[in-house]
């Protein structure tokens, strides 16, 4: 085999660096960092915080009407909303810290956040 086609040390180094970068990117962007809290903002600029550690359903009054949310197995989703497009419902379950679920026409948004301490409490006072 021609020497020009042989894998050299530098090639291996480049390959290893690339592999490390891909791995680090995957860990940074796709690692499953489950959220502990849902920060819910209604159209009245009121912020509510609710833990994801208890399965529940809740109704949030927005500008158009009532949006329904479901929390199950530490995930959250819109189950009903008065908007026309229903994009919020179609976006499905959200569970990672940083995820945002929103119904823009109804002005209801939910941001999931990580807070290790939250799971230790039965209720959050604020």
């Amino acid at each position, binding site marked *: 085999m021609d020497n020009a086609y042989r894998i050299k040390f530098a090639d291996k180094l480049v390959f290893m660096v690339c592999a490390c970068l891909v791995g680090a990117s995957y860990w940074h962007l796709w690692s499953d960092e489950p959220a502990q*809290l849902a*920060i*819910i903002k*209604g*159209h*009245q*600029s*009121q*912020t*509510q*915080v*609710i833990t994801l550690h*208890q*399965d*529940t*359903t*809740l*109704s*949030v*009054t927005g500008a158009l009407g*009532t949006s329904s949310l479901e929390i199950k197995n530490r995930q959250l989703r819109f189950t009903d909303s008065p908007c026309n497009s229903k994009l919020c419902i179609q976006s499905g379950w959200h569970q990672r810290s940083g995820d945002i679920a929103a119904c823009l026409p109804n002005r209801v948004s939910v941001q999931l*956040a990580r*807070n290790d*301490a*939250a799971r*230790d*409490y*039965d*209720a*959050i*006072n*604020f």
Partner: protein
Amino acid sequence: MTLLSIARYCLFAGMFALLVSVTGCSKPHREFNETVFTMGTLVEVTIIGEEEAVTDKAYAAILDDFSYMHNTWHPWQRNALARLNSLLKTGAAFSLAPSILPLIEHSAVLSEKSHGLFNPAIGGLVKLWGFHQDDYDAIFSPPDEDVIAEFLTDLPQMSDIEVDNLTMYGKNANLHLDFGGFAKGVAVDATIEHLREFGIENAIINAGGDLRAIGKRGNRPWRIGIRDPRSDGVFASIDISGDESVFTSGDYERYFMSQNKRYHHIIDPRTGYPADQTRSVTVVHSDAATADAAATALFIAGPEQWHRIATSMGIKFVMLIDKAGNVHMNPAMARRINFTQSTPEIILSKPL
């Protein structure tokens, strides 16, 4: 069947029994948890150790309670309170409003004990600031200084309401009742009592972060996290067992921004402006209505005067975070509070 087969069956049966017992241990009590948006906030109801039939009936009953109180006491909708407010301004006598009279009498006592810092009669001032609407994004600027100054020249008090047998009347044209710093506590008290009528002994009603807890969670106290006023994290925690309420007033709850300045909804009746010496106040007390009113009053009182007002209102557990982030507490509160991260420097007061 060989001896080896019998031994295998015994081993399998033993492991199955162990699995069942372990699974049983992991779920020691039945838990009911529902959340509903009412009274302008999310109300979370948690009930432990009751049959589903009982919790379903109790939950339906307290939803009715919340709905009634929301419709009757809402500060800017057309309801019984709006009618009463319009009549109070006239100065003429009118027939008592039975759905609101208990709130007036109870809050008048607390207002006096707070030396007027908790003052539900200043709804007109709150309205001037624009907080009597659903959309705070629509508020762009504070009211004119002159308008506030004029209002303060004839500041209404709860004592301006006279109850005479079956009639009542107002003695101040600026009277406008707003039970925003009180109605949530009254509602939590009423619904906890309603749960007890169903025989429920272990429950939390958490109305937008302010709560009353009765009983315990299984074999341990209720564990309450207290939010950091400057982040979404938990700042401290406190254990509750028996029957106690935990209420916090903070400058982060309802506010608008104008020229890079934050204007929140807790208005100091002495100045006409949002109280600016405090980030948050947490009060622990037996009943939620008093805790609610006290949290508002102590927030306005600030780091210099909170101890005097708390003493006057009969409050035994207070934590106040001032505008610089210093933590003020009475010794009894300091013994109960657990900080989740590093322990801040605490400014201890005299005992309450």
